[in-house]
């Protein structure tokens, strides 16, 4: 099987898990491999954009530059956790193992990304809001609850024995967890918010250079997220194939 850039029909076949396992695993690895080249490039450009290209914020100073990474990573948390939800629903309907691979890989990457959001946030908040952890803010609280839910997911995963029951339970918990996010958000929202709303419906209140830097950073983080998910999925697929070999 040869792989061409841009990706051909195989990309669509990946979405419907009807392919043989080894081909899929190869496909995931190829996607990860091929995205590495644009990923290096994008990361360098994002770093350049955040630290050199974007102007220093007048009031916050250099600490504001963390914002580009913070936002880029934060959006990918939701992308990854949506992947968990999607994988869970699709697994319960189709009972194809590859959907569980998607969900499990997305959780791992999502938890790492959420941890990054929860680390970069306080670094910014300490000098600006004079507090590491403002408890009254719905976004921070929701993100923290997200993190707790999906860390719990990983614990559930690791304490269940391998088998269909495990994938089913994890799918169910992934679905509840994802449905819970908007509910958590609304329940926290009646408290006063102090999170800066940068992108409003009337348009971004940012310098054009800042928007460019943010844009590149978001793209770079998204590619990173997808690459990591692909690597984990290939790993899972390979290990499940190895399992089948040893059991047969």
């Amino acid at each position, binding site marked *: 099987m040869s792989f061409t850039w841009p990706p051909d029909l195989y990309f669509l076949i990946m979405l419907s898990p009807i392919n043989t396992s080894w081909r899929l695993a190869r496909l995931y690895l190829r996607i990860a491999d091929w995205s590495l080249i644009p990923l290096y490039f994008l990361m360098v450009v994002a770093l350049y954009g955040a630290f050199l290209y974007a102007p220093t914020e007048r009031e916050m100073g250099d600490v504001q530059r963390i914002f580009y990474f913070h936002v880029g990573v934060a959006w990918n948390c939701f992308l990854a956790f949506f992947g968990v939800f999607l994988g869970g629903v699709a697994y*319960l309907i189709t009972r194809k193992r590859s959907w569980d691979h998607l969900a499990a890989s997305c959780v791992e990457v999502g938890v790492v990304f959420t941890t990054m959001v929860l680390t970069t946030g306080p670094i910014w908040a300490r000098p600006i809001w004079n507090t590491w952890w403002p408890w009254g803010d719905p976004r921070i609280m929701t993100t923290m*609850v997200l993190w*707790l*839910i999906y860390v*719990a997911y990983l*614990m*559930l995963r690791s*304490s*269940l024995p391998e088998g269909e*029951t495990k994938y*089913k*339970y994890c*799918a*169910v*918990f992934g*679905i*509840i*967890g994802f*449905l*819970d996010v908007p*509910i*958590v958000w*609304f*329940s*926290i929202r*009646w408290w006063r918010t102090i999170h800066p709303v940068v992108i409003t419906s009337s348009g971004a209140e940012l310098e054009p250079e800042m928007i460019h830097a943010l844009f590149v950073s978001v793209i770079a983080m998204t590619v990173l997220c997808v690459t990591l998910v692909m690597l984990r999925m290939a790993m899972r697929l390979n290990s499940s194939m190895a399992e089948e070999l040893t059991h047969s």
Partner: protein
Amino acid sequence: MNPIALTWILVGKDLKIEYRSWQAYLTTVFFALLILVIFNFAFDPGSPATREAASGILWVALLFPGIIRLNRSFQVEMEEGTLYGLILSPADRGVLFLGKLLANWLFLMVVDLMVFLAFVIVYNFSFSTQLLWIVLLIVLSALGFSAVGTLLGAMVSTIRTREVLLPVLLFPIILPIILPAVSGTQEILLAQEIQSLNRSVEFLLAFDVIYLAAGFVLFDYVVAD
């Protein structure tokens, strides 16, 4: 057979088990009382700060015994393998869920009300009709709690570390229930003008409906085939 009648049979079965092992009630209530007493030692009982924290103390004392109950709910079924009997019975899985849920809910309400009574006395609050609002909050949050708890309790019942795993899974998910319950209770206890209480009740009702629906649909996948 009529699903409502079936549900009541299931609830009756669980309640009968509980009635015959009344020590379980006693242990759970006693555990909650201990939490109240320990908090009373942790805070200075006479200070206004304790009165402000009272609502939080009450809800901690209600949540932890709830976890014990949920763990028990399916452990009883696992011990003698009766869960398989339930699954093999012609009853719909949804009925199974509702039966377990209602039994958990009733049990929790009884325990919670006893704990609440003890709380009012130990923390020197005066009895008034306002406290009935707290009872409403307790009833509503116990419903949501047992809806998610029944689903997750069934899930972890086969796992060796279920006692620890259940709260870890449950608490982040039911945070939307804890929040309005705690803040609503605080408002009543501090006897300010009660403004957002309606909102607490509305939120709780809405969340209960969502969790009930989610549990009802997903329980099908949780009990073994």
